[in-house]
């Protein structure tokens, strides 16, 4: 009986320890430097996104007969998933009800998106700017539907996290003007954790999927991705000169991505992994022209693991302390 009690006490202590460790992991105390990096980075990303699409904005999102394929196709596919997903059609219908033309609504939406990006860059009206940027970008991504690509999803995710994070940060103009009280460090830590864990998923799944393709082991996938239009910025004649390095580079990318969730948390390897991942994204931007994708990934990595490096010391030292506490108390019980 006493042994039974002892066992249940131990398992209870074990589960309590696990829960406590999990909560310690989820809510580390952090300052808001990472949030400043995320806000400024996403402000820049939003501005660049709006400017890149400036000349094609109406052509991409106009209705059938005026644009490339018409906004309605993307919106119909989105509506099939759920009619509650925001889309530009909502804003256009709203504009129509007050006699504003589709063209004018699209222009206003573009101008608002650009302005929200600028406001985020400056840190002015941070929360409303983040919400507007997220909403308008989501509307554009969903109405564009078939024309969207990976960078759009990452941008939506990043803006989604930014608008939920405890803004404004101490480097923002808002803070300078209003002098609001400092945010809860554990809440700041929680949102950074969300970002960190999300990136671990991204790289692990991406790396694992690449490992399952034979083309990443012999370098042929790198060759194919570098010569296919519109990514063919480097002439194939130059690539041929480096043909013996392609297999090594392909394998390195697979290993770098699949092992990211392990080595990015270790203090000794974090800097190497972070620099390697940043270099990989910079190369993606420069060599295949995926500038928006490269920029958003660099911003996310810098905010998650680059802004300050007190993550491991915080989490692990707390875990050690908690472990010691549990050990002492269980000795006292016996």
């Amino acid at each position, binding site marked *: 009986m006493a042994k039974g009690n002892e066992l249940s006490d131990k398992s209870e202590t074990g589960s309590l320890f696990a829960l406590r460790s999990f909560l310690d992991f989820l*809510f580390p105390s952090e300052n808001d430097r990472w949030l400043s990096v995320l806000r400024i980075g996403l402000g820049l990303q939003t501005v660049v996104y709006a400017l890149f699409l400036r000349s094609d904005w109406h052509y991409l999102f106009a209705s059938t007969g005026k644009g490339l394929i018409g906004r309605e196709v993307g919106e119909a596919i989105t509506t099939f998933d*759920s009619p509650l997903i925001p889309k530009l059609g909502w804003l256009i219908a709203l504009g129509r009800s007050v006699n504003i033309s589709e063209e004018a609504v699209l222009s206003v939406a573009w101008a608002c998106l650009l302005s929200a990006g600028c406001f985020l860059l400056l840190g002015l009206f941070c929360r409303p700017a983040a919400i507007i940027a997220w909403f308008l970008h989501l509307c554009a991504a969903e109405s564009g539907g078939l024309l969207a*690509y990976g960078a759009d999803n990452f941008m939506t995710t990043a803006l989604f996290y930014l608008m939920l994070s405890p803004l404004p940060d101490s480097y923002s103009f808002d803070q300078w003007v209003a002098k609001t009280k400092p945010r809860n460090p554990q809440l700041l830590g929680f949102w950074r954790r969300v970002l960190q864990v999300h990136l671990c*998923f991204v790289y692990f799944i991406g790396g694992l999927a690449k490992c399952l393709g034979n083309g990443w082991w012999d370098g042929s996938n790198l060759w*194919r*991705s570098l010569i296919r239009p519109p990514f063919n910025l480097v002439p194939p004649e130059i*690539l041929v000169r480096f043909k013996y390095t392609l297999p090594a580079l392909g394998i390195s990318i697979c290993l770098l991505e699949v092992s990211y969730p392990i080595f990015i948390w270790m203090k000794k390897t974090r800097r190497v992994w972070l620099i390697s991942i940043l270099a990989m994204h910079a190369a993606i931007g420069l060599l295949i022209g995926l500038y928006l994708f490269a920029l958003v990934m660099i911003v996310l990595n810098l905010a998650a693991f680059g802004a300050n490096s007190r993550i491991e010391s915080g989490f692990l030292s707390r875990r050690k302390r908690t472990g010691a506490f549990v050990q002492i108390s269980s000795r006292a019980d016996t």
Partner: protein
Amino acid sequence: MFPKRIYAAWFGIHFVLITAVCFAGLFSLIAEGATILPSALQPYARKAEVAAAWVLGKQTTASSPVRRGIATYLHAAGIQAGYTFFAPNVPGYDRLTLELFYDDGRVERESPRLRSKAAGLRLDSLLDRLAEQSYEPIREAIVKRLAFSVWREYPDVKKIHAVFGSVTPPDIAEFERGKPETFQPIFSFDFSLREGHGEGQ
């Protein structure tokens, strides 16, 4: 103080959804035989994909509030698609060529295009999707719209012959031997144009 339990619960639900989306995509690749894994695993991968889809509510009817609620959240958070970019292998690319027929017998070749290069990436993304089997029902409608966008710039054109196909680039050794890329047509449509309306034939 803020409610830690609520935040922790949200964290759990959020990452369960991300896991389901990611693994549904990964299992789908295995089930399609697109990976180096043995084909014996394909039926199991299909079952696992169905299980992941169940978590996302995709086994319910399209009008189910649960399914719609999950889909709305996934889109709002930008997590509706997995992260298997350029994986497991990088496929060839797709090309849409439009042959423009004039009344006087002239024939010109043209492709849909956008002004900026950044937006051009999106057009390629669209063409890649058209090649997928799941987009087969809307192919004609999309190609018709793309043909119509070109016709607006060339109003004298009477007929457009659209050919969509897959381009297989040479590998390094083939490139060194001078082999060009190969084009395999997948489908084609003819559109006759009159008074601002395109008609698929």
